Structure formats: C-alpha cells, structure tokens
C-alpha cells in the first residue's frame, strides 16, 4: 500500500461524511416543507430563498443552546450514548457503492469507500451495534420515561432486526454475493424490487421500525413518554440524536436502493442507452440521489398520514406477521432461483413474484380478519 491509497481513502471518507452531514441538514428542511404541504401549511420559508438557509440557522441555535447535565445521571455513559448513536449511522455508509469509477490524473477512482466481500454482513453487524446508543441513553438518564423509551427502542429494534436479516438474505440469494457492488451489478437486467416485490416491501417496513420513524416511533411517543430516551438531553447532545435519526434515514434509504432498487444503476430498460452508468459514470450518484429522495419522500408521507401503532400491536406485527412472511419469501426466492438453475428453466424465476405476492395477500387477509374480530389487543 503506497501513500496515495491512504490519501484517497481519507478524502473519500471525508467526502462521504460531508455528504451525509449536508444530507441530514437538508433532510430536516425537506421533511418540514413536505409535511407542511401535506397539512396545507407553508413551512419554513423565511431564512434564505424558500427557506434554504433554515438548517444553518437551526444548527447555530442548537450549538449555542445551554447544555444541561442532570445531577443524577451516569455521567460517562450519558456522554457516550449520543456518540454511540451517531457513529454507526455514519460508518454504515462506508460499504455502499455510490457509482462506478472514473479516471483522475491517471488513477482509477472508485465511488465507494470500501468494497467488502462480506458487505451485507457488515451492514447487519453495524445495525445491531446501533441499538446501544439509544438503550444506554435511556438507562443513563436515570429517568423513568427515558428508561421506558430506551427499553422500548431496544425491544423493537431486536424484534425487527430478524426480519431485516432475512431481507438481507433475500438480496444475497438473488445477487449471489455478499458484496454490495456485485449485488448492484446483478440488477443490471432487472431490479430485485421487481422480481421480489414482497421482500422490498418488508425491507421498507422493517427499516422504518429500525430507525424509529412513524408509525413505529413508540420510543419517543410524546403523549406517554415526554420525549422518550432523549428527554434529559439538550443542546448539542440532543442535536446528535437528531442527527443520528436523520442520517439513519438517509443511509437506510441508500441501502434499500442498493439492495432492491438497482443502487446507482439506471432503470433496467435504459441499460444500453446514453443514460446507462456504464457509459457515463457521473450518472451513478445522480441516480442514487434520486432514488434516495423518492424513498425518503415515502417515509415522510407515511409520517404525515399514519397514526402511531400501539406498542403490543407493533411487537405482534413484527413477530407474528413480518417474521413468518419474510421466512416464506426467503424460501420462495431461494427455491425459485435453485429450480431455475438446476432445471435451466427461466419460468421458475417468474414464479417468485407471483407466489410471494400471493403469500403477502394471505398475510394481509389474516391481519384484516384478526382486526375485524373483537380484538383483545393482538393481531
């Protein structure tokens, strides 16, 4: 390894962090404006043109806010918790390919920080680490509401991580690799979201729960827990939690785009035209950005329209609906691909979406029946 490789890695890391931080700042504005539109309001539009300077004003406010450390907190963990929440959300993005590669000063520069062979496993391991920050924040605040929020968050994240892992398995089976670059390249002919729509849908639902977004935002349900796990945090420490949540939204949308929506690739029917990333490398990041913006819009839309799910129903939904359904979809996907390979018959590939949609409809029908019956709090 010569020095320039190190330099390249450091620059890429900085650029990635810069992208995520800017993305976080403007995602807050995007969310506020979009929510305002849906609620027939205007939203913040005073600072700068159409409110474009609003994130900077917010940041300045948060930095200069007084920071309180309550007297009876467990100090070390109290300080550690926001850091433990932010770092995984930044580190996750390292394996996500943003595009193909380009040549600069005779060097081929690839548009990803790390090209891991076990990329998908890396994502699961970092995602499982990410629970700590919130749990510890809840515990170290030494406050009943915060504690309840932290416990809810960890229970919810552990429960939904199982379905998340199975969705990763679907992408691994379909991409025939754990390397995210390979998975993206396998989607040249067809996005996985088309071949396995149920898998993509489960992934999107589960990620909402993983980042504690509405309608799964029980850990910070204002009506019952004041502000949940970050009740005792103020100033910059609170800003870190805020930042982590929005960065996780961005990163998880990037992962969803990479695993199921073709990553930095164009639409499959544009693959041999001018719009292909194989012919113009600079289109890669643009495509990914557009996909992320669309996925984020869905998250905001859901927040604007859906009420919060009651906690026991949330757990029941995770364990009794999503987990069995994702197990079945993994089975259908693997069996379809294996049969297509062994019998050399592409027809089996087409059976994957049909069968999995039938299973999903059965699941929806069962939920509907369960809710129609006199419910005793279970789905």
């Amino acid at each position: 390894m010569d020095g320039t490789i190190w330099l390249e890695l450091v620059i890429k890391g900085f650029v990635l962090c810069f992208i995520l931080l800017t993305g976080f700042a403007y995602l807050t504005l995007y969310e506020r404006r979009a929510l305002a539109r849906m609620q027939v309001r205007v939203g913040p539009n005073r600072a700068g043109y159409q409110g474009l300077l609003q994130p900077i004003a917010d940041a300045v406010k948060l930095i200069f806010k007084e920071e309180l450390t309550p007297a009876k907190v467990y100090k070390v963990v109290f300080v550690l918790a926001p850091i433990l929440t932010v770092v995984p959300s930044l580190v996750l993005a390292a394996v996500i390919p943003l595009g193909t590669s380009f040549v600069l000063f005779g060097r081929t520069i690839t548009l990803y920080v790390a090209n891991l062979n076990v990329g998908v496993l890396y994502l699961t391991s970092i995602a499982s680490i990410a629970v700590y920050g919130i749990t510890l924040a809840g515990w170290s605040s030494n406050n009943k509401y915060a504690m309840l929020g932290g416990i809810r968050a960890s229970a919810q994240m552990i429960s939904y991580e199982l379905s998340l892992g199975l969705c990763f398995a679907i992408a691994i089976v379909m991409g025939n690799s754990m390397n995210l670059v390979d998975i993206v390249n396998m989607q040249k002919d067809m996005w996985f979201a088309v071949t396995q729509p149920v898998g993509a849908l489960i992934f999107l639902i589960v990620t909402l729960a993983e980042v504690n977004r509405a309608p799964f935002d029980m850990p910070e349900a204002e009506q019952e827990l004041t502000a949940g796990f970050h009740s005792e945090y103020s100033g910059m420490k609170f800003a870190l939690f805020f930042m982590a949540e929005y960065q996780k939204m961005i990163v998880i949308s990037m992962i969803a785009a990479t695993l199921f929506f073709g990553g930095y690739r164009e639409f499959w029917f544009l693959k041999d035209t001018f719009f292909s990333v194989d012919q113009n490398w600079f289109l890669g990041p643009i495509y990914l950005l557009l996909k992320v913006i669309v996925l984020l819009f869905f998250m905001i839309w859901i927040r604007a329209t859906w009420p919060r799910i009651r906690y026991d129903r949330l757990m029941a939904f995770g364990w009794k609906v999503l987990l069995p359904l994702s197990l079945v979809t993994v089975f259908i996907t693997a069996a379809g691909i294996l049969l297509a390979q062994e019998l050399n018959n592409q027809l089996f590939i087409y059976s994957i979406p049909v069968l999995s949609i039938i299973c999903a409809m059965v699941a929806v029908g069962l939920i509907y029946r369960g809710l129609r019956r006199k419910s005793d709090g279970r789905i």
Partner: protein
Amino acid sequence: MTSDLIVFLVLSLVAVAAALGMVLSRNAVYSALFLVLNFVTVAIFYLILGAPFIAMSQITVYAGAIMVLFLFVIMLLGAESLAPSEVLPWQKWLARGLAFALIAELIYLFWNTRPEIITTPGLVVNSMDSLRAMAMSLFNDFLLPFEVTSILLLVAMVGAIVLSKREKAGQK
C-alpha cells in the same frame, strides 16, 4: 508485518483491560459494556487473521444480539448495582485452584508447542470463496450437527415459552 504486530499489541491490551474491567466493575451495566468492547476487539483479531465472516458474525451475534439482550434484562430487573452478597467460603478456594490449573495448562501448552503449528489456518480466506467453502462444509459435511444444534435451540425456546406460560396460569 510490523504494523500487524503493533495493532495486535494495542488490541490485546484493550482486550485484556476490557476483560478485567468486566470482572471488576461493580455496576452490571458497565460490566456488560466492557464485555461488548472485549467482543469487538476479538472480532478485530479475527479480521487480522483474515476471517471477515467470523469477525462480522461475532459482532452481529455476540456484541449485537446477545449483549443487547443482557443489557435489556439488567435494565428491566434494575439489577445494575450489585448488593454485597454472601460468599460461599469454599467457592473462593475452588476458584483459585481452578484458575491456577488453567494457567498451568496454558503454560504447558505454550512451552511444548512448536511455533510452526500456531499459524493462520490454511483455508481459502479473504474472498467470497471462503464464505462459499464454509457454507458448503456446514451444509454438506456437518449437516447433522447443524440440524441437531438448531433443534436444540428450538427446544430451549419452546421450554422458555412453556415455563413463562405456566407461571401466568398459576397467577390466575
């Protein structure tokens, strides 16, 4: 090679310190956190040895899932601070004896092993092939142990559910 050695030395210091911290700290939550740190350093050791799959599963399974459950239980029970419980008198001496036996065994092992035996395993490491090779041997050669393990885990899970159910029925 020297950079590997430096990383190894620093990491082993951290690992030992984390292990000691885990045993010595009086607060169960701190103990759990030290244990997480220890697991993460062990995972980095696996990475240095060229076994990324094991490293990542170590973090996912141990540092992620299992330790989060530990923390969860500690917090739910409010068992953070250890009360000075009564110590069994013979337990201390038994523990000391066993610890000495373990140390003696380790020393014997190190003195009598030629260094060329302790090398990195000669498998296909550092590529997707290693993953595939592992999966092949797991699901072909070791299929029976794998299935037996999974049934064992299933039995444990069912047992836990049965136990908790019966308690609830007794309360009613």
